[in-house]
């Protein structure tokens, strides 16, 4: 399969998935009890603000869809706009278009997530390598213990622990808000632990597997210095599979920021999504859902391409299946 036809296939699949995501979201939202107006009325009533919410909604709705438009037409109109990156105004914030909200909120979420992943990678690779090279030593067991802590605790709980330490006990970092670098420290720290643990675990097991490969013995038998053999032969090959977990990891991190954003009151995109769902703000919910899905799939596509680039077996078209079957055959023969 040529690269062009591969890309074409992937893109078609992405578009189909996006359509499916939009349909599922829209249908679910239609099924949800109460619409935007009801929700606003209830919360507004509680807050003694009269029918302001309803007016907003009517305003936003009418400016986009006119009165009395059936749901399926609303969907089509929305999708027509979405195709040209125009999601229309939000119900809740009728003066702002959804794409502007995304443009404002996403950089915040993305910054936190990307910095967190970068830090995780920098920490996790040496840790995983170190644990693998000292397999079954106390150092290895200790590392694995900490790694388990990291995988077990959700990022918001880590966030809470950080707040207890840095805000409550030492009072050196602010527990909420988003205005300066000091506001970034705790959210990022909270996000780093989980991915670091996951990555380190993968690096360790992948490294252990690679170290058992005969080509590592062969390189040592050629007179390679251990450090050279590890970096040139083992590390490279054990990091290739790591690339595949990076995709899902980035995805879970991008969306996982929603809890950290809620905890630290950061105006990121995740928080808008949660609000949109709660208030049945159709354009905002659909817009953010589609945007997240797009980001996710692009991320996976990039990961696959990088993987193919790193592994010559995949780079050569169709090579991977042949290699695997040959390897299996030769194992049987042995």
């Amino acid at each position, binding site marked *: 399969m040529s690269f062009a036809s591969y890309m074409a296939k992937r893109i078609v699949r992405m578009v189909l998935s996006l359509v499916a995501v939009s349909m599922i979201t829209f249908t679910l939202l239609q099924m949800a009890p109460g619409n935007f107006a009801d929700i606003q009325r209830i919360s507004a009533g509680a807050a003694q603000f009269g029918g302001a919410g309803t007016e907003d909604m009517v305003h936003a709705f009418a400016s986009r869809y006119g009165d009395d438009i059936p749901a399926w037409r609303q969907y089509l109109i929305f999708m027509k706009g979405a195709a040209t990156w125009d999601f229309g105004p939000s119900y809740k914030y009728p003066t702002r278009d959804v794409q502007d909200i995304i443009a404002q909120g996403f950089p915040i979420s993305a910054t936190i997530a990307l910095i967190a992943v970068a830090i995780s990678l920098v920490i996790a690779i040496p840790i995983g390598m170190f644990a693998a090279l000292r397999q079954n030593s106390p150092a290895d067991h200790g590392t694995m213990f900490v790694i388990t802590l990291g995988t077990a605790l959700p990022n918001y709980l880590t966030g809470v622990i950080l707040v207890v330490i840095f805000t409550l006990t030492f009072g050196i970092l602010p527990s909420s808000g988003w205005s300066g670098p000091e506001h970034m420290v705790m959210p990022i720290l909270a996000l780093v632990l989980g991915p670091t643990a996951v990555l380190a675990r993968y690096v360790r097991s992948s490294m252990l597997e690679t170290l058992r490969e005969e080509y590592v013995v062969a390189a040592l038998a050629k007179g390679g210095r251990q450090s050279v053999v590890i970096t040139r032969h083992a590390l490279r090959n054990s990091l290739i599979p790591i690339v595949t977990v990076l995709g899902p990891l980035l995805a879970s991190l991008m969306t996982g920021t929603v809890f950290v954003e809620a905890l630290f009151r950061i105006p990121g995109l995740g928080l808008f999504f949660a609000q949109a769902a*709660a208030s049945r703000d159709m354009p905002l919910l659909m817009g953010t859902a589609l945007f997240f899905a797009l980001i996710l799939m692009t991320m996976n596509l990039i990961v696959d391409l990088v993987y193919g680039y790193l592994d010559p077996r995949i780079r050569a078209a169709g090579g991977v299946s042949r290699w695997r079957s040959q390897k299996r055959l030769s194992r049987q023969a042995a």
Partner: protein
Amino acid sequence: MALAEATEPTGSIEAVKARGHWAGAWARFRANRLAFISLIFCGLLVITAIAAPWIAPYHFTETDPTARLAPIGADGHWLGTDMLGRDLFSRMIYGLRTALFVAFGAELASLVVAIVIGLSAGYIGGRVDQGLMGITDVMYAFPSYLFAIVLVTVMGRSLWAVMLAIGISSWVTQARLVRAQVLSVKEREYIEAARSMGASGTTISFRYILPNAVGPLLVTTSFAIPAAIGAEAGLALLGLGVQPPTPSWGSMISEGTSYILAAPHLLLFPAGMFALTLLAFTWVGDGVRDAFDANGESR
């Protein structure tokens, strides 16, 4: 007959008792002290959750107007009370009940669905498989937390709704895993051998493939439980979890952060208990994984 004598097994096998797959895994699990202690602890948690109405001194809605934000060791409330004067200890026990109910329910449901769908996709292949992979593609494009958020909004915030939302957003991963397992077990020679003996598709699926795919499945399920506990609390933290006043550790943590200076125990105890629970379940998962890995079956 000379032949029988000729093949008297040598040393090694005499020393070893007949031991099956499960017995071996269990022995290795028992030998793992941390995992075994964690398992006992998790068992106690489950019992506590089931027996909550008898263990908790108060009902979770019961308010004590005379003791709002009571400190630790207050009269009749040994872990203190919250801003409405509700007993913290009781609410934590009911929070545990909520968490475990949701987590076990969600994982059980998703496991059953995953096994049926994953097994048929893997074994039958063809259209069924393509269908599953199609669904998976879409679900993978939809971040699971966000999907759960939308689902909870749709279904309301009852205990069952939260459970379903978490279950629905996790079955796809499980089904994919079952499918992958089935595909790898299906390649084994013993399945071909079974076919050559005249075994039917159902026999092969349920008697031969499933038992050998169960190990890895058990491993992921035991990691999925703490993940589901975390998801339940996460939804509650966003205000999308179980409808108050039913307690959830997520909402308790969220409230706790609001009173962090006035009454830190409102945050510390639920958060601490939450962390401990998650760790215990994760350590059990670790133990299960190591127990099955050593069999070399999952390679």
